[in-house]
């Protein structure tokens, strides 16, 4: 690795070829394609049951130029560990990457993911996060944000949308002290490529968490995918950082926080949200924002709810 990769200098050879079956504006296909471009042809791919499996590999054709295997939903962490062990046993150094969705990572696959991280197996685990079970038709996952409509958190007469906040998966990964973990956005390609390259250059367990907007599940226009990915970062719904050997580093800090409403109003999945619910989500974001961007301000002792609220108000004044 001599020069840092940019979109101009990055490898141009596609490992995920055109003609695959992803929806127009699919954030996931862009993420997978760019990760594989950087990893190159000496890579073995595992996919659990997911959109990625369905749109890239249907017998007897496939859109991938690299070896590929699928087996089940909850075992990405375990299968890639097995592949890596088999390769290392034969003295082969190929990269082993698993691309799992948020359901296969946050929920059903968390145990196998945690096992691979704890053993520090020599694999790259990529979570392509579109915030619901999109392949099965948009059901709630542990990654779905507060208030969002899904088919299992419908906009009902009594309850509207998901009532819990998104699981902080990166903290779970970070707590396992892995060599490298990072969050990525397809709207920040320079940052994206640098992190994939960094993960590629390391050994042991590496985790990349990529936000991948989904046109069908988010009920958005295909042309809005990048703007949504960008706004997610600007609003604080998504934070770009990396954790390298225990040290956390913010890799992009928005100049100022954009109100989350700007992000929500572009998406059909949030269009029902009440003023109160938007406020609840905004408060959660403000807390997260503080945690990420102003770590010195995080009090070591728990604050009272009153103090918490006053701090949030201060934050809001600054917007």
């Amino acid at each position, binding site marked *: 690795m001599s020069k840092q990769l940019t979109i101009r200098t990055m490898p141009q050879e596609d490992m995920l070829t055109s003609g695959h079956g992803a929806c127009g504006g699919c954030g996931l296909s862009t993420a997978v394609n760019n990760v594989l471009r950087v990893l190159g042809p000496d890579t073995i791919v595992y996919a659990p049951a997911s959109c990625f499996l369905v749109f890239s590999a*249907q*017998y007897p054709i496939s859109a991938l130029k690299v070896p590929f*295997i699928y*087996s089940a939903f909850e075992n990405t962490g375990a299968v890639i560990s097995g592949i890596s062990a088999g*390769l290392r046993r034969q003295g082969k150094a190929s990269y082993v990457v698993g691309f799992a969705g948020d359901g296969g990572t946050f929920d059903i696959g968390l145990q196998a993911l945690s096992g691979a991280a704890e*053993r520090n197996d020599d694999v790259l685990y990529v979570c392509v996060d579109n915030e619901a079970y999109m392949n099965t038709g948009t059901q709630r996952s542990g990654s779905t944000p507060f208030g969002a409509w899904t088919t299992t958190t419908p906009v009902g007469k009594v309850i509207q949308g998901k009532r819990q906040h998104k699981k902080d998966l990166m903290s779970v990964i970070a707590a396992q002290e892995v060599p490298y973990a990072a969050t990525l956005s397809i709207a920040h390609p320079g940052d994206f490529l640098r992190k994939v390259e960094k993960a590629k250059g390391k050994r042991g367990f590496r985790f990349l968490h990529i936000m991948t907007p989904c046109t069908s599940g988010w009920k958005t226009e295909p042309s809005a995918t990048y703007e949504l990915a960008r706004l997610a970062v600007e609003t604080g719904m998504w934070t770009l950082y990396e954790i390298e050997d225990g040290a956390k580093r913010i890799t992009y800090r928005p100049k100022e926080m954009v109100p989350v409403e700007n992000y929500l109003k572009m998406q059909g999945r949030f269009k029902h949200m009440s003023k109160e619910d938007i406020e609840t989500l905004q408060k959660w974001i403000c807390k997260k924002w503080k945690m990420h961007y102003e770590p010195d301000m995080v009090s070591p002792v728990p604050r009272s709810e009153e103090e918490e609220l006053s701090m949030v108000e201060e934050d809001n004044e600054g917007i």
Partner: protein
Amino acid sequence: MKVKVLSGDHAVAHAVKLCKVDVIPTYPITPQTLIIEKISDFIFDGEFDATFMHADSEHSAMSMAVGASATGVRTFTATASQGLALMHEMLYVAPQTRLPIVMANVNRSLGAGSGIWAEYNDSMPERESGWMQVYVEDCQEAMDAIIQAYRVAEDHRVMLPMMVCLDAFVLSHTVEKVLVPEQSEVDAFLPRFRPMNYLDTSNPKFINIAVSPAHSMEMRYQMDHLMRGVAPFIDEVDEEFSKMFGRRYGGVIEEYRMEDADYALMTLGTATSTARVAVDELRAEGRKVGLIKLRFMRPFPHERLRRALEHVKAFGVFDRSISMNGFGPVFTEARNSLYGTGVPVTDHIAGIGGRDLTVQMFKEMFQRIEDSVKGGGRDCYWHGLRGEQI
């Protein structure tokens, strides 16, 4: 050849070492634990050069085995009961991906009303998965079956995973004299694994991808066709094994005193040893009884069984598991084998949940089998129930 005193579990561990297995994902479960403990001793002491993997569950252990085997290395794991049930989903992946993984399953009862003792209700439901299944009788056979399993599984005409099943505690924790072959003998019998399709970036292939109805039915048909044709390879490998090691097991079934038998019983696992004594004692009384030891549940030896039973007047099947509808799974298979022959077949359920099996119990089974020619009896009997049989 060395003579050692080994438990069934330790015999399996020694066999895995002799087979020079490359990758061993593991998860502990009673009564399989002695297998992976012994293997970890071998590896951690530097006596055995293999990659030992600590899985986070049995589902992950089988997932790791699938991943490793798909790269073209020899792979082993072990489980029992609840662990096998947790693997259920991944069990189906191995055969349909044509991965010749070998796994020891220490048969143990499963589920509520659970215990840790011998019963086949864990592995019998998995006979639909596409794994070959061999049930062993003693510690020597536990060791030999692992060596034979790799030879059969990795044959390019087969390429299917095999489950080596041994009875909880009766075998797993009981020590016996075992003849341990020399490494050079095993090397001569078991060549290095030559994978056919594997994950290799110099020759990219797709392994196990989504299949539409336009192709999946043919794939299932081919799997079924393959399993039906595997029995002769097993017989062939057993024959070659006997030339090298001087021990033979009969391939898919072994016949004992069947030459002129009028009444026959089929057993599997450690029950066979007890049933042999019953046969010998009944023969001493002049009764013309014989025994068939069922080794393979998959492929099920329909043809060999039909041939072996050509001259019998009645036949009985021992089952150490129950299908909750009146019959045990071995009986159901065996009656299929004999369909149309007119030979009366009775089911004899015993030893459930690790209940002791006695010589007397097998004598009672033979009595029921003899009585069945007269008609009027039931076709399923439970033996050794406490209190009166209903």
